[in-house]
């Protein structure tokens, strides 16, 4: 089936339609606003499902590729002589491949679930849902954009809604959390922007002879052009010049610098350990549905960017740094696990667990082989679902008990059997119980790493064990043990709460028993990159 | 006046005359006052050296704060006096310049007259007290 209408644009901007409708509504009608928002998130979900079903990995990319000239500025020609045409080119370019597809689906799912879970929001519903939908638009754009500028813009677009969502609807110290979020991520995206700008004016430069004998020069922000130029030894970017008369040359050192800058930029988002403090604040202060999105999707954007721009564009440099990456991943994994073990608050346990799991992603990536990469991406998806589920539950508990302290919570399985059960299941998935999605991601990642960094992989296993310990400690502590008397009367989940729980849980199980659901799609995306790598490193 | 260099020199020489006149202007008072010093008596007393105030004891500072109006006039003067810097060269060259130059100068003067009218209307030109 071929879809000949711009489905990707529809997908990306459909949340905005909902947002626009919301704006027109009276701000006091809470139910109306809520249902509109939920429906608005279902729209992209439906589109994403259609895409997922329709996408055929055997002929990647061709069907879903939307391009239009967005910005095309003619550079001044009289200054140079007027024999050629020059322009600066940024495209409106959306494209789908095996890497983005699962993430898009994940985004739509988690966003819908978050919208459903937003019943705990008590004030200013209109703005809340508005920003939520804008956020979704930004996230979808990030995964689909195939132009550097587009990517950057969507990346930035996610900042503003998050700023408001954390800053207005968060807990007590919300403003501080919001500003830290903004500053850290702003720093990350600024670094990213620097790299992108440099890429556009070097690797983005291309030269072609047009039909009429006129030459055409231009800078392009297109991902494909840049990727092609970087991998093409004949391109300007790779032409070393003695006297520096080639302004487009990107030296090896420069490329490494760019890769490391990208690592930092996306590492802040991911987050990699020294840059993770902002993320704890957000986890601690933001309202539960926002944390679902944050932990479930926003962190994945970092990993996605790292893969797409770091690994795909600079495979050689990634290879050079792979040990460093692996060590970073290991540190993330162990540090997160150890600190999580010592936390007394469920929120923070889960926050550090996110950190720890992102370490696994990094480890998988550092393997630089197909299995490791697949593991990493699978881990992204799986953790997206699991952490969304965990924070959803956390929010539900918090709403009922007004606390997330481990020593105050306890024995909730008695009054809330359904939710406690779900929590247990999610916890088990998180610690990597076979049959649930977490297991597949961790297994594949570690298998990949074993191929390239044996020692590190061995140590990582320790981290996995630690994970099991802290997750069980937390989950058991909440569900079983002695119950505080004031929790006697709390009620179990309502339908509207149970729905997302069930959906997410089902997906976790589905991925656990049928991982090919994702890996099938991923398969083709990594091919070209690994080929490239082998070509350059091996040859 | 045979060549340019000499003309320039003659031109400069006229200023030597001016300088001599200024010198004379300085010399006369200096000489006269010096001569006067030899001739006149010098017997200062306190009452003689007191500030004159119609025979009364001087009250307060002698350098009293004067009306701000004087500044207004100074401002007006600065503006209009500088106008002449442009008027004179224009007038000298007028016969070579033609009608448009007149229009230009008319505009220039009109601006200034506008300023004058403004000051007039804002009662800057009206003198009251002191």
């Amino acid at each position, binding site marked *: 089936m071929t879809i000949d209408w711009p489905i990707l644009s529809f997908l990306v901007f459909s949340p905005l339609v909902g947002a626009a409708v919301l704006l027109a509504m009276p701000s006091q009608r809470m139910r109306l606003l809520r249902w509109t928002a939920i429906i608005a998130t279902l729209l992209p979900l439906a589109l994403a499902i259609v895409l997922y079903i329709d996408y055929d990995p055997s002929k990647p990319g061709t069907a879903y590729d939307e391009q239009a000239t967005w910005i095309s500025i003619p550079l*001044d020609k*009289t200054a140079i002589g007027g024999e050629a045409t020059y322009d600066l080119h940024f495209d409106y370019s959306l494209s789908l491949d095996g890497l983005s597809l699962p993430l898009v689906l994940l985004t739509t799912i988690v966003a819908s679930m978050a919208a459903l879970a937003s019943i705990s929001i008590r004030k200013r519903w209109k703005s809340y849902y508005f920003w939520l939908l804008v956020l979704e638009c930004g996230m979808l754009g990030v995964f689909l954009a195939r132009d550097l500028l587009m990517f950057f813009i969507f990346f930035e677009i996610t900042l503003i809604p998050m700023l408001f969502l954390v800053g207005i609807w968060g807990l007590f110290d919300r403003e501080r959390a919001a500003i830290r979020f903004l500053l850290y991520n702003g720093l990350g995206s600024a670094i990213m922007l620097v790299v992108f700008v*440099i890429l556009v004016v070097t690797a983005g430069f291309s030269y072609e002879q047009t039909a009429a004998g006129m030459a055409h020069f231009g800078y392009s922000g297109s991902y494909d052009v840049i990727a092609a130029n970087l991998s093409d030894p004949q391109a300007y970017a790779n032409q070393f010049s003695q006297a520096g008369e080639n302004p487009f040359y990107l030296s090896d050192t420069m490329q490494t610098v760019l890769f490391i800058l990208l690592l930092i930029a996306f590492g802040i988002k991911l987050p990699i350990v020294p840059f993770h403090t902002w993320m704890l604040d957000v986890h601690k202060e933001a309202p539960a549905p926002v944390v679902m999105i944050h932990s479930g999707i926003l962190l994945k954007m970092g990993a996605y960017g790292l893969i797409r721009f770091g690994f795909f564009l600079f495979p050689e440099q990634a290879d050079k740094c792979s040990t460093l990456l692996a060590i970073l991943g290991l540190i993330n994994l162990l540090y997160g696990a150890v600190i999580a073990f010592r936390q007394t608050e469920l929120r923070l346990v889960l926050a550090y667990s996110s950190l720890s799991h992102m370490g696994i992603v990094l480890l998988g990536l550092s393997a630089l082989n197909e299995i490791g990469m697949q593991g990493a991406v699978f881990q992204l998806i799986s953790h997206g679902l699991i952490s969304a589920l965990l924070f959803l539950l956390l929010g539900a508990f918090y709403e009922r008990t007004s606390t997330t302290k481990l020593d105050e919570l306890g024995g909730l399985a008695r009054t809330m059997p359904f939710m406690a059960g779900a929590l247990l299941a999610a916890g088990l998935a998180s610690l990597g119980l076979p049959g649930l999605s977490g297991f597949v991601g961790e297994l594949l990642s570690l298998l990949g790493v074993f191929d390239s960094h044996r020692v590190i992989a061995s140590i990582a296993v320790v981290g996995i064990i630690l994970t099991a310990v802290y997750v069980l400690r937390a989950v058991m502590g909440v569900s079983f043990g002695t119950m505080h008397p004031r929790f006697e009367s709390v009620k179990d989940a309502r339908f509207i709460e149970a729905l997302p729980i069930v959906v997410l849980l089902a997906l976790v199980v589905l991925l656990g028993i049928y991982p090919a659901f994702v890996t099938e799609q991923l398969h083709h995306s990594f091919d070209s990159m690994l080929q490239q790598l082998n070509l350059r490193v091996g040859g | 006046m045979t060549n340019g260099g000499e003309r320039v020199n003659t031109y400069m020489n006229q200023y030597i005359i001016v300088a001599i006149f200024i010198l004379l202007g300085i010399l006369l008072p200096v000489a006269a006052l010096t001569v006067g010093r030899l001739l006149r008596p010098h017997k200062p007393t306190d009452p003689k050296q007191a500030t004159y105030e119609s025979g009364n004891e001087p009250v307060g500072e002698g350098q009293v704060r004067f009306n701000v109006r004087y500044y207004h006039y100074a401002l007006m003067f600065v503006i209009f006096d500088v106008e002449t810097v442009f008027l004179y060269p224009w007038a000298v060259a007028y016969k070579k310049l033609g009608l448009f130059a007149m229009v230009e100068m008319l505009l220039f003067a009109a601006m200034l007259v506008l300023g004058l009218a403004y000051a007039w209307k804002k009662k800057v030109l009206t003198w009251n007290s002191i």
Partner: protein
Amino acid sequence: MAYERTLQSMTWADAGHMAPELILIAMMALLIIVDLVLPRRIDRSIIGWLSLASLIGSFVSVVWHIQDQADQSQESIALGLLNDNYRIDDFGAMFKLLLLTAAALIALWSLGSMKRGTRGQLDHQGEYYYLLLPATAGAMLMTSTGDLITLYTGLELLSISTYVLVGLRTKRDVALQAASSEEKVSAKPAEAAFKYVVTGGISSAFILFGMSYLYGLTGSTHVGEIGSMLTQTVDSFRGLIYMAFFFMIAGFGIKIAAAPFHAWAPDVYEGAPTPVSAFLAVISKAAAAAALFRLFYNLVFPESLSNGNTIGHDLFRAVLAVAACAMLVGTLSALRQHNMKRLLALSGVANAGYLIVPIGLSFYGAHSNNAAELFFYAAAYLFMNIGAFAVLSIVAGARDSESDDSVQLRTFEGLYHRAPWTASAMIIFVLSLAGLPISGGFFGKLFIMMGAASTHAYWLVAIMAGSSVISYYVYFGIVRQMFMRSSGDVSVHVPAASGTVVWLCAAATLVLGVYPNGLLHWFEHVFSVVNDLLVLRR
């Protein structure tokens, strides 16, 4: 090489070409008379509307000129009036459009925020409106000069008019003055004006001092001639040439309020009536930047091309250093600022840094659209800054407690609850100022960064990005006040004219952010470096 200036008088045709400026000046004269003749009781808004109309008229005549040129020939030819003292070319025309837009917006907004009977009303309403015109004309003059004398004249016409504008008192100032029981009464506008006069005077002196050396070395004040002469004399007078240009950079730095020459800006902006602050922030900066651009392009660039001489490169680097300094100092010092006007002034300092980056970037095959970068950023800055100032005046206008000077950051407290639409517009301006997409400010910065990167000034790219990030904190403070604080008690009344300006600016900022192509395409279509920027004597 010395040439005798032939006496060249102005002709009617020349007057036609100078119509945009002449309209403004003539209307100013007319309005002065109208103001003098009208009885006191009549509201001076009429003068405001008339001066708005003349700004629009001037705008139309510039557009007409561009169109006329386009009709006549494929490549528009620049005209040099009065011995090339005055250049009618597309570079100038474009910037004139920008300046006139800004001035018109400011005039319109003033009609709302300084309405008779409000606390924003000026003591001298008539003067305010008709002084906007010569100030704008001076700025326009600066953008199309081919000669140092003309440049200086334009600069001073702008400066002197703004000195007066800064010193105008509003009813609020008078009320504050009456209310304060201290011996020293409030004199903020006058104080600001005095500070501006002093710094402005110093800056003119610097610029002139630099110019005088350039004249001495080349025997001409015509920029094209100086440029070509400099390449010849450069070896023998290195020191003097450096000195001349450093003085000029410093002088223009003061005018543009780029750090380290920015110390006056917060004080002056704070004391001046808010629309005047916006005028200084936008029009003065843009005009000075355009003038500096043309100057550098004509004077320094030819020299930097010739091999072996490095003065040009050093000077470009000096401009970049000032730019970098301005960005960093502006943002860093804005961090601790709680007074909105001062905050916007410091943000203006940072933006001045961005604005002058294209001037310092070298110009070669791989990077040739410095002018477009400058123009686009100036346009984006215009809308976001005027918008932000207009919102500030609306918010401050709502507050009438007499002991408070009402431009503190906390005035914005809970603005979203009091005036959601205004707050939303402010969000757009703040995003644009911070350089976040999708806004004109973002693209402006992006293009400048691209320019810097393509000339391999990576350090500058890093500073630009870094200062943007720091500025997030600054601007977040405003957002925090507006959206995350509970409602303030004072209701906000949005005057129709001010509201219109806010929304026009917001819309323009968004349009520049979503579709920057339009403006840039147009600019590149009309403008060509050789014809419109180089002042060659024919």
